[in-house]
């Protein structure tokens, strides 16, 4: 299973690969990923790779990813070429009308891609007083809710609770459910 996680520096995308890794290791699988640190982290485009299984290289090749998790819709579009045919994406959208772009739809249809959009900023404005650092767990919840990965929600709940710092645990678990509920409610 190969994931690509994209967003902007400072959005907390590293936490999501941490959670995915924790779950995979718990299942006795090998995990391998690649992160971005340093200058590129400062608010710019950030791509993080994550692979579960027997691999040597931490990088996902364009056209090989099963799942794309995008914290920003523009970053999602820029990185859609990572998805393999039949791949799936969870994306946080702030301007959902872009999804109606004819070229974009043609591309997704031609490759049989499934895009699951969630208005993350709106949800966090409404429920979390605009604390957008919770995007990472929101997207993980959405991934389970939309049935995008084979990870059962119960396992996700467990991993998020275990890996969250004490002071964010309760809120993280709450936001995880918000993401899940967006697709299941």
């Amino acid at each position, binding site marked *: 299973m190969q994931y690509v996680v994209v967003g*902007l*520096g*400072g959005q907390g995308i590293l936490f999501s*690969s*941490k959670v995915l*890794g*924790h779950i995979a*290791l718990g299942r006795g699988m*090998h*995990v*391998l*990923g*690649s*992160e*971005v*640190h*340093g*200058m*590129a*982290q*400062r*608010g*710019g*485009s950030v791509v993080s790779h*994550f692979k579960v299984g027997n*691999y*040597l*290289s*931490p*990088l*996902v*090749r*364009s*056209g*090989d990813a099963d799942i794309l998790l995008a914290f920003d819709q*523009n*970053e999602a*579009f*820029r990185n*859609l*070429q990572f998805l393999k045919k039949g791949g799936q994406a969870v994306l946080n959208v*702030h301007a959902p009308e*872009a999804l109606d*772009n004819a*070229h*974009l739809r*043609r*591309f997704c249809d*031609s*490759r049989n891609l499934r895009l699951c959009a969630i208005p993350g*900023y709106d949800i966090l*404005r409404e429920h979390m007083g*605009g604390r*957008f650092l919770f995007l990472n767990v929101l997207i993980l919840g959405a991934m389970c809710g939309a049935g995008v990965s084979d990870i059962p929600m119960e396992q996700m709940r467990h991993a998020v609770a275990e890996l969250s710092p004490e002071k964010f645990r309760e809120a993280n678990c709450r936001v995880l459910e918000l993401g899940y509920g967006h697709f299941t409610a």
Partner: protein
Amino acid sequence: MRGVVGVRKREILLGNEAIARGVVEAGCEVASAYPGTPSSEILPAIARFADELGTKTAVEWAVNEKVAFEVAAAAAFAGKRSCAVMKQVGLNVAADALMSVAYFELAGGFLVVVADDPGPHSSQTEQDSRAFAHFAKIPCFDPATAEEARDMVAVAYDLSEKYHMPVMLRPTGRVDHARQDVELREIAAPERPARFTKDVRRWVCLPAHVRLNHPQLNAKNDAIREEFETSFDAFTYEVPAKEKAKLGIVASGVSFAIVSDLLAAWGRTDVALLKIGTPVPLPVRRVESFLARHEKVLLLEETYPVIEEQLRDRTKVLGRWNGAVPREGELLPEVIAGIVARALGEPLPEAVDPSLKAALEELQVKPRPPMLCPGCPHRASFFAIRKAVPNGIYPSDIGCYTLGVNQKMVDSVICMGASVTQPSGFHLAYRVDGKEQPIVATIGDSTFFHMGIPGLVNAVYNRHAFVLAILDNSITAMTGGQPNPAVGEKLRKGDPGRAVDIAGVVRGCGVSFVRTVEAYDIPTGIDVVKEAWEHARREKEPAVVLFRHPCMLLRCEQAKVPVRVDQEKCVGCRFCINFFNCPALRFDEEKKKAFVDDRFCVACGVCREVCPHGAIVPIREEE
């Protein structure tokens, strides 16, 4: 548990943590480093594992890489296993010491970890430190994965002690910032008592001694090359093709990992691999034998042709000499897929889909460049400097504040510390023409200590007129927030350090104009920089302004001043976008007005000072 090799569970580690784990497992007792991407996480992880495993390892941030290298080298003179860690350009700073220490007959094992940055992602060069190892005549290990990097550390220490010389481990960023499950071990190496045996012939690099040591160094290289030819099979080995090989590939570092995954994904059984984990000195016979058995051989290594250029006959090699492999840039999986397909004479993998390309164009989606964080004090300092000295030349330095380039406030950057020396050059260039040119240079607190001080002394001594703005945010921010001498805290909490006062150092260098301002206070900043430049030109000497405000990454509590753009007052001039360049100030192309994007705003309130039309206003309670 000392002296016992045990096996523990697997844990997910960052490549840099895996290297650190190896360093502690190998019994390193003195570790020194200067942070720099992609190496920065190694040293803190050494401290963490040392504490977990109960070693007494001294772990310290040094003021620069030369200092780190020399501190670690001398610990090895005294018989300890030691380690210096830096990024590739840091080795340039430490090069003087490296070249010299290579000739020494060390007592303890000395590992130099140098992290390269192909791409580059966060550096001013794409240099290959394996070439530096070759230049210094020291052996170099090139890991393909995080786990292999950890394994190489112990072997590198043994080799260092066997030949009494420094050994380099050269991970690239993809190994440093890989995250993978790694098997943890206990400490394998026994403690070595500190014992410095005085021996002038051994420890003093007089020319007479060098004449004796250089042939000895050459002999060590021959012996190590021979060892790499015949052993070290864990790191340098062949992966034969299952059928007759159509192509041979020699690969080093993460390129080996990428090409292995690629061949597996393609299901190819007609490509043979030779993995080189020991590129310097190159086991030439191994490569020549591989070349002899294959019609065509592709050579994949990052970033310079270090293996390639050690070969005597390259006629069969598809590499950089004949353009088969690009001479610059990172060898990403897509790039390697193209190179391998071309070498096999097969169709190239598909490029970006035309409909996706059209969608990106229509939706105006572009990669977002790095920017200073919302609320970053540097942004305010740059704004004040421009207002005070609008016709200046603005040399700058390496750090977050290089991103001041987005505010048109960074005109030239060379390397660490050069913000203090470039003004001297600019000053002299104009002065010989009889002209006066305002110059305001910017440097961060950590960079000032790193290499800024000699340039400042030089400017005072030679009487060069310019303003040096030291942007003191009490942290080494770009690399993830390490403490530095200005802060006084050491790497380990509870390990007492002492703060070195920047203003005191500046005065000690002979600067008479030294003023400190709160970076968020733009009006005062403007006045003080104006005054500083007046002083500098009048007295013909450098003047220093210290802009202080903690880095946003420190998440200090500060007053929240939510703001909005008054849509009536905004004239759509984009002044705030162009000269303040905050991620939270954006431009609505339809309305032709600026607006505050709540996804990014941290309510620092600084931008209220920025709008020439007073359109950026606080949000009142009732709104």
